């Protein structure tokens, strides 16, 4: 079980309808690759976030499959079109079954 996991997202509060905005996401996570060894020489079991998704009003925006070589505290930045007011929903899926969620609403003007 990973500790100290905290999702963060940055989405503008409003945008012109139909325009494109930049979204930044960051989740603090150790992202243990499963390749490292502890002092006794035993493998430290893999514990990473393996999937990240973003949806806007139920419509998929991005989906990312993550592999063990991804760095600690993975950061994703991407652009999304905002056709109408609504809510961006972000979900991270952990190896241990935990699911971390964040949501941000945006107003189309």
């Amino acid at each position, binding site marked *: 079980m990973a500790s*100290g996991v*905290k999702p*963060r997202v*940055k989405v503008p509060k409003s945008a012109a309808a139909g325009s494109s905005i930049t979204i*930044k996401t*960051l989740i*603090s996570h150790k992202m243990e690759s499963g390749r490292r060894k502890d002092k006794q020489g035993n493998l430290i079991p893999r514990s990473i976030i393996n999937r990240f998704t973003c949806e806007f009003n139920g419509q998929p925006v991005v989906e990312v499959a993550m592999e063990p070589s991804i*760095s*600690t*505290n993975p*950061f994703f930045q991407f652009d999304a079109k905002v056709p109408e007011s609504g809510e961006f929903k972000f979900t991270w899926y952990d190896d241990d079954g935990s699911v971390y969620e964040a949501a941000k609403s945006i107003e189309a003007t």
Partner: protein
Amino acid sequence: MKNKSLNGVFGLVAVTTFAIGTVSVWAETAPKPAKLVVNDESEMVTEVKPAEGISHLATAYDGWRFRASETQAVQSDDFENPGMIFVEQALDNWNKVDGTEGKSCASCHGAPEESMVGVRASYPKWDETMGKVATIEMEINNCRTTRMGAEPWKYTGGEMTTMNALISVQSRGMPVNVAIDGPAQSAWEHGKEMYYTRTGELELSCASCHEQHYGDKIRAETLSQGQINGFPSYRLKNGKLNSIHARFKGCVRDTRAETYKPGSQDFVDLELYVASRGNGLSVSGPSVRN
């Protein structure tokens, strides 16, 4: 003997080059834009003319100025700055009760946003009760042992460095202003002497690189002036916050000398002197560096 005389010649060449002005060469080729604006709102002072008699620098530059534009961009947004994750972690420690007295930092100091404003800008400084020049780390451990009844933290350990970052960020944008006169004067003079004394098998002083050759390449890296206003520093190479004394230790080791101990009075004096070289630069930690 032959080596000795060669060294003399090289030393002379280096000094001459400096006098003619390697400085301006760097300033002309420095990456633009040169303005550090954090979160699109607070502009940091990244260059300042130092007061007379402190150093031989014509202009003091924030270490941020020497980094690649990609690295610079990461520091200009708190959301992207990985150092801020550690600041959040430190806030948990700030509120956590530890030790026999049942106190946390917050028990006495309240919210760091109020009580810690300006602290980082004036440290290291003379502490009357300790009777010596003290760093933030020493004050933290003093609080932990005498007021909280808790175990002291390791000087360059994770908890210590992140707590220092939490305290530093409250002073961000304020000019560094360490006092070098009064009771702190002898420590400052000792620090200055250390700065200009060549040590190690490579016979390098701090000034050999950071005063005479900043802006030049040292292997693949660009030498900065070694200013410490941006510490604690998140380094991309180790993915954590790094303290001033850990950096000093790394530098002294690179001259192939026996290093001083982090937290030793020698390093405290050196920290005071190096801080004074950047008097007037903004406190900008946690910074992002290679």
